[in-house]
């Protein structure tokens, strides 16, 4: 199939960006979206132009590195699918596709489709852990954890940290990202000891990094490639209130 692409090109953080038009020709339905861009890039290099810069690494939907909005939707049209796992069989010959970077105040563009998401790392550094040292821990089966809690913790822990939730949110909030970590650890006995401190630290960090607050739009869940549920935001809120009462 042949496609027309409008791709965001921006030389550097301080340059002005613009949408450029490209043709993608002879695209096979078996290609992934990023393989389609590879083909376009090979063409650009051959004709002496600079290829489109975009983040990607695992190309199997787990590292969270890929980050493109397709026709305005982070990770594109297919539900629960990262852009690297989106395949061209979901497009039709003659389609026009708009490709843009994540748009959020806390994610400045570095180049073309690549943004700086280090703010998410800093939220994690503020408290997204159990303060355990290497060694000196009890046998793994000392504490039984109800299967339902372990499963719920895993549901939250599946977050790949891609930032699509932020890009989709009208407020640029990182609430779903933060809530997923808070809920994951609060569901497990190992994480409960620090859960009050954690929720306060992480929420503070989130606000300090320039992320907006949650307005219950739930766009985040709709675009999340792992389908992280917004109920974890409610869990974060409960943990937050509990922490305030304790104070």
């Amino acid at each position, binding site marked *: 199939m042949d496609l027309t692409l409008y791709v965001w090109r921006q030389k550097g953080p301080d340059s002005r960006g613009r949408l450029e038009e490209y043709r993608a020709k002879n695209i096979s339905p078996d290609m992934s979206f990023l393989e389609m861009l590879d083909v376009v890039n090979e063409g650009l290099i051959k004709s002496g132009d600079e290829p489109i810069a975009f983040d990607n690494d695992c190309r199997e939907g787990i590292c969270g590195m890929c980050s493109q909005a397709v026709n305005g939707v982070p990770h594109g049209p297919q539900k629960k699918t990262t852009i690297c796992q989106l395949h061209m069989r979901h497009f039709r010959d003659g389609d026009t596709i708009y490709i843009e970077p994540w748009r959020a105040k806390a994610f400045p563009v570095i180049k073309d489709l690549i943004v700086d998401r280090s703010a998410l790392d800093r939220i994690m550094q503020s408290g997204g852990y159990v303060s355990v040292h290497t060694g000196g821990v009890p046998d793994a089966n000392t504490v039984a*954890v109800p299967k339902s809690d372990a499963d719920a913790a895993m549901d939250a822990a599946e977050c790949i940290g891609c930032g699509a939730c932020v890009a989709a949110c009208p407020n640029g909030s990182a609430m779903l990202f933060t809530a997923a970590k808070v809920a994951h650890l609060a569901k497990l006995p190992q994480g409960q000891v620090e859960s009050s401190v954690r929720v306060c630290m992480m929420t503070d960090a989130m606000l300090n990094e320039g992320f907006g607050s949650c307005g219950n739009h739930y766009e985040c869940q709709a675009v999340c490639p792992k389908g992280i549920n917004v109920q974890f935001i409610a869990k974060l809120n409960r943990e937050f209130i509990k922490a305030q009462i304790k104070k």
Partner: protein
Amino acid sequence: MILDGKCPSGPLAYKWSKHRQEMKLVNPANKRKFRIIVVGTGLAGSSAAASLGELGYNVEAFCYQDSPRRAHSIAAQGGINAAKNYPNDGDSIFRLFHDTIKGGDFRSREANVYRLAEVSNSIIDQCVAQGVPFARDYAGYLDNRSFGGAQVSRTFYARGQTGQQLLLGAYSALSRQIKAGTVRLHTRTEMLDLVIVDGEAKGVTVRDLVTGAIKTYAADAVCLCTGGYANVFYLSTNAMGNNVTAAYRAYKKGAFFANPCYTQIHPTCIPMTGNHQSKLTLMSESLRNDGRVWVSKIRGDRRPPHEIPEDERDYYLERKYPSFGNLAPRDISSRAAKEVCDEGYGVGASGRGVYLDFADAICRIGEDKIRERYGNLFEMYEKITGEDAYKQPMRMYPAPHYAMGGLWVDYNLQSNLPGLFVLGEANFSDHGANRLGASALMQGLADGYFILPYTIADYLARTKPGKVNTGRPEFIKSMEDSETLTKKLLSINGNKTVNEFHRELGSIMWEHVGMARSTESLTKALNLIPGLREEFWKNVRVTGSEAELNQELEKAGRVADFLEFGELLAIDALHRNESCGGHFRTEYQTADGEAMRDDEKFCYVAAWESKGPGRGPELHKEPLAYENVGLAVRSYK
């Protein structure tokens, strides 16, 4: 030179504890005077950096991605082994050790493997304490599954995302140390060179991938945790950025490269669809617990799978290996798949594929249970192929996956260059000629949490902290060399893209140095690779400039190294006149097509030393002694 692995003496079970007693310690007040560089933040690097930071050392950690959480450890699906024996099915440290030695086809060091099995249990304890949400049973205790090459259930897992959860655990420990100020993190930074001062590793030269700036860092020791080199085959299950650059440039600076020919081809990957293919996707080996592998008994059968009656199906793994069946080790399963396809029984449009069928398991335990176990894998399969594996069998084909070979290290994980430590997939140490499933995660975390923190102290305690700084001529030279290389790549301005060269190298490697190798094929590869490399340096086109984010330049540097390393891999494969594990030489096989080792001549680690441009590498040998398991012909029948 005969190399010494420096394994402690004494009975196997006491070697590590005895060694720990004997190693020197660095006192707490002195620790903060030492600076340690950790390159790579996958399981090995994150766990090492976090543990060293906790101990009070100053750590500089580097990775090429935008966050430590994105290292390719994240992609491991199946699980992690430990000798907990929770299921009470007869597991023990010795059995895990024995399985790993046997799985490695008797080409690994006994003392290392035993230690690995010994610390395996602490890893699970550690990860649970960090909040890793491992799968649990209804009583709330940890669940186990079985994996290829073992007859006990010793694999711990977190749905189909074990690597992700373990890495997020290590990343959380690392994040805590970053906040505490003991670890300084440098993301989007690529190591280009190792700096050696007076024969010892004392720093690195790196490129800031955002600004393009080339900088140097000095330290008291350097740890490389930079992962494996399966991308030398171009198509592999590795991430796009996985490379041999850090390890290879250390090799060029004098570190020995061990057993590069030991590469693992994973039996269950989604078959490729065309030339556009940029990577291959693995479907966890754990699927073989419930999936049955088969092809039609009729050559070139084009009927859809459900129209092929039971008695016209060849469950060839169950037929050839009745006691392990679908759980035969990876090298054996991969070769068996290649054989049936070579003979014309392959399935799918390309004929390069075999079925992995869940119909029986769905009948036996129900679709829900299968969904619970492998839901995300089935989803992934559907996304890539557009097929529903609950309704029709998956199609699978082997793909390059893992590197058993790597930089040579002794029992302390120290290379022949003092001060250089190598951890995780980047070293060669524990898996011999073939790695068993679920033991790479175990090894990466063992190295980082429980081995390096002890052994590095023994080295540091014998040195003076802060001995060198980046003002030394060695650092300035290294930086200039890296700049020159970068400029050279950008100046060629030829007609072929970096990807085209990588793809060509990959097809040489896969055709001639892949699953089955021969003197003829290897000689051919050794003729082709230098020509391709020469062409690369004349005709590659790298767009853009050095002073900016430039992904073509990044790729070009990595492919340039693969073009040299591929040759080293083939040289090693050609010299090893035997078949063992992942290294299969067609001249050396039994009448029924099994690998034939030559213990008389090849029971050693081959460690190659670079002799500089234009000169072949020199071989050093570390003899392997088996004192606790008898050298035996591996049998999974």
